C-alpha cells in the first residue's frame, strides 16, 4: 500500500515511505524451497500454477473485506454470503447458456462466462449495498454487535439461498474449452487455472492502479491510514465506505463464480468455508492492507498445494501453521497498517 505513494509521479516531491521489501520475497522463497522438496520440476510447475490460481481467487474475495475493515473498522462475517451468491448466480446464468458453454470454441465459452461474472458482480454488489444499509449501518463502532449482526446476516443469507436454489449440492461444470490441461514442457497445467491466474492478475492490476493512481484510491488509502484526518479535510468517508463495501461485495461475487468453477460444484455452505480461509489471509496480510492481503493469499494458495502433495495430512492445517509463523514474526501481520 505505501509502495504506491512512493511511485506516484506527481508526489515525488513529498517525503516517501521506505518500501518494505522483505515480505515481497516470501512468495518466491516459498516456491524455491518447495522445488527441491518436490523433486520433479514438472510437478512443481503444475503445483505452483495451481497454488497461484487458488491464491488469486482468494485474493479477489479477500481484498474487499480487508479494505472495508481498514476504512471503517467493520469486519463483515457475512462476506461469505456474497461468495455463495456469486457462485449460485453463475450456476443459473451458465445453465441458461448451455449452448455456448458446451461448444468447443473458446470465444463462445468466454462469451458465456463473462456475462455470468458480470451478473454475479452486479447482483452481489447490489445485495452488498442493501446489506450495508440494513445490517451494518445501525451498528457502526460497536464491535460485539457487528460481529453478531453480520453473522446473523450470514445465517439469513445462506437460508435464503437455500430457499431459492435448494439445499443440495449443484454441479457447476467448466465450459468445454476450459477443461483439460496444456503441456508446458513436461508439466501438465490445467487450462482453467491459467485463466484464473490471468483474471486474478487483471483484478490485482486494476485495483493497484485504482488505489495508487486515482483520487478515489488516494482517499481510500488515506482513509485507511487516518479516517478522521480525511474527514476533517472535507471528504465524506461514509460515502467512500459504501462504495468500497459495494465493490468488495461485487469482487466477492466474482470470486464466488471463480471458486465455484474451480471446485466444479456449489453448496450453500461454501461461503462459510471460504470465509475461514479469507480471515486467515487478511490476518496474515495485516488487517486493512491490500498488498499484504495479496501476498498472504498467494502464500496460502501455494502452501496448500505444496503440502497437499508432500504431506496431505499436514495440508489441512498448513493455513493455521502459516498464520502462527507469520504472527510470531510480525504480530500485526505482514504489512501492519499504521494506526493500529
Amino acid at each position, binding site marked *: 500500500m505505501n509502495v504506491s505513494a512512493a511511485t506516484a509521479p506527481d508526489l515525488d516531491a513529498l517525503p516517501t515511505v521506505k518500501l518494505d521489501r522483505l515480505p515481497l520475497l516470501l512468495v518466491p522463497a516459498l516456491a524455491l524451497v518447495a522445488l527441491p522438496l518436490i523433486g520433479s520440476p514438472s510437478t512443481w510447475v503444475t503445483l505452483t500454477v495451481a497454488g497461484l490460481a487458488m491464491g488469486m481467487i482468494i485474493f479477489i474475495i479477500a481484498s474487499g473485506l480487508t479494505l472495508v*475493515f481498514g476504512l471503517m473498522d467493520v*469486519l463483515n*462475517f457475512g462476506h461469505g454470503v456474497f461468495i455463495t451468491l456469486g457462485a449460485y448466480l453463475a450456476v443459473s446464468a451458465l445453465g441458461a447458456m448451455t449452448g455456448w458453454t458446451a461448444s468447443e470454441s473458446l470465444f463462445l465459452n468466454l462469451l458465456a462466462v463473462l456475462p455470468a461474472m458480470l451478473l454475479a458482480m452486479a447482483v452481489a454488489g447490489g445485495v452488498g449495498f442493501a446489506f450495508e444499509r440494513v*445490517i451494518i449501518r*445501525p*451498528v457502526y463502532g460497536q*464491535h*460485539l*454487535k*457487528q*460481529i*453478531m*449482526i453480520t*453473522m*446473523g*446476516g450470514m*445465517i*439469513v443469507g445462506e*437460508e*435464503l439461498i*437455500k*430457499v*431459492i436454489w435448494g*439445499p443440495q449440492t449443484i454441479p457447476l461444470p467448466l465450459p468445454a474449452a476450459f477443461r483439460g490441461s496444456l503441456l508446458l514442457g513436461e508439466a501438465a497445467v490445467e487450462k482453467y487455472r491459467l485463466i484464473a491466474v490471468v483474471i486474478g492478475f487483471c483484478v490485482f492490476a486494476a485495483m493497484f492502479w485504482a488505489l495508487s493512481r486515482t483520487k478515489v484510491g488516494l482517499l481510500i488509502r488515506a482513509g485507511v491510514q487516518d479516517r478522521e484526518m480525511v474527514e476533517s479535510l472535507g471528504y465524506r468517508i461514509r460515502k467512500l465506505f459504501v462504495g468500497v463495501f459495494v465493490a468488495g461485495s461485487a469482487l466477492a461475487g466474482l470470486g464466488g463464480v471463480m471458486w465455484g468453477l474451480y471446485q466444479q460444484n456449489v453448496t450453500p455452505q461454501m461461503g*462459510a468455508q471460504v*470465509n*475461514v480461509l479469507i*480471515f*486467515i489471509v487478511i*490476518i496474515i496480510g495485516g*488487517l486493512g492492507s491490500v498488498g499484504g492481503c495479496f501476498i498472504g493469499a498467494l502464500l496460502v494458495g501455494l502452501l496448500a498445494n505444496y503440502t497437499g502433495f508432500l504431506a496431505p*495430512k499436514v495440508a*489441512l*492445517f498448513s*493455513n*493455521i501453521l502459516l*498464520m502462527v509463523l507469520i504472527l510470531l514474526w510480525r504480530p500485526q501481520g505482514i504489512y501492519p497498517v499504521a494506526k493500529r
Partner: protein
Amino acid sequence: MTFNRMLSGDLPRNRILTALLIAIVAGLALAPFLFPGAKALNVAAKICIFIVLVASFDLLLGYTGIVSFAHTMFFGIGAYGVAIALTRLGPSWAAVGAGIAAALALSFGLSFLIGLFSLRVKAIFYAMITLAVASAFQTFASQLSEITGGEDGLNFKVPEMLTPGFSLAEQPFLGVSLDGKLISYYLLFAVTVALFLLMLRIVNSPFGRVLQAIRENDFRAEALGYRTVVYRTFSNVLSAGFATLAGALLALWLRYNGPDTSLSFEIMIDILLMVVIGGMGTMYGAVLGATLFIVAQNYLQDLMKFASDAAAGIPLLPDLVHPDRWLLWLGILFILSVYRFPTGIVGKLRARK
C-alpha cells in the same frame, strides 16, 4: 433466605420471568412423568445440556464481552473425551471419570493458550482466530479416524446403571418404568442444576464483577488496577471447562459422539442464537434461550410443515415456510433482537418490571 443464597442473590427480579423459569425448571424436573415418549425425553435432556453450554458461553460473551467461535470445540472435546475413554476402557464409572479429566485438562490447556495468544488484541481478532482454530480442530478430529471414529463417530456402551436395560424396580412408578434411561436423565438434570448454580455464583462473585467491568470499559478496568488479560484468559478457561462438562453430558446421554453432534459450526451458531435471544449477561437468558430454541427446533418444524402445506400453490411462500427453513426465521429473530432488544427476553422482561 436459603433460596436467595442458592441463587447467589441474583434473583430473576420480574414476575413473568420468575413464572417462566419456575415452569421450565418444573417441566424439566418432571419431564419423564409429564411428557411420556422417547422424543419428549430427548428434547428435555437436550435442553438441560444446552442450558449448561449456553450459560458457559454467556459467561464469555455476555459477562466478559468476548466473542469466541471456538466454544463448540470445547464442547466437542468433552464429548470425545467421554466417548474415547468409554470405547477404550470399557463401560465403567472410572472410564467416565478418566475421560472427563483428560478432556478438562486438554480444554484448559487449549483455552489458556488461545487466550494468551489472542486476547491481548481486539475482540474482532479473537473472533477470527477462534473461527480458524475451531475449523482446524474439526478437520483434525475427523482425520484421526483410528481414535475418534472419523466422520462416522463413536458408538459406545455407558456404565450399566445408565443403560435402558437396567431397572431399579419391577413395578413402574406413576406409569413410568424406573430404568437406566430415567436414571441418566435425572443424573443429567442434577448436574445441570449444580453447574448452573455454580456459574451463577461465579458471575455474582467479585471476580464476576470485574469481568463485567471489563465488558463495559476495559480501559477503565485496567486503570483501576485489574490485569484485564489475566481476567479475560481466566474467564475463557472457565467457560471452556463448563462447555467441556456439557459435552461430557451429551456423550453420556446419546451413547454416541461424532463431529456433527458436538463439533459442527451449526451448533456454534445455535448457541450464539440462544444466548442472544435469551438475553446476554443474565445467565437466566441461557435457560430461556436454550428452551425456546430447542423446543422450536423440534416442534416449530411441525407447525411450519402445516403452514407450508396450507400455502401450497402460492409462489415462493411454501419454500419460505418449508420445515427445513426454520433457521431462517430464527436468524431474522436473532438480527432483530440484536437491534431491538440487545439484552434479550430476560432484559426486556426485567425492564418492564
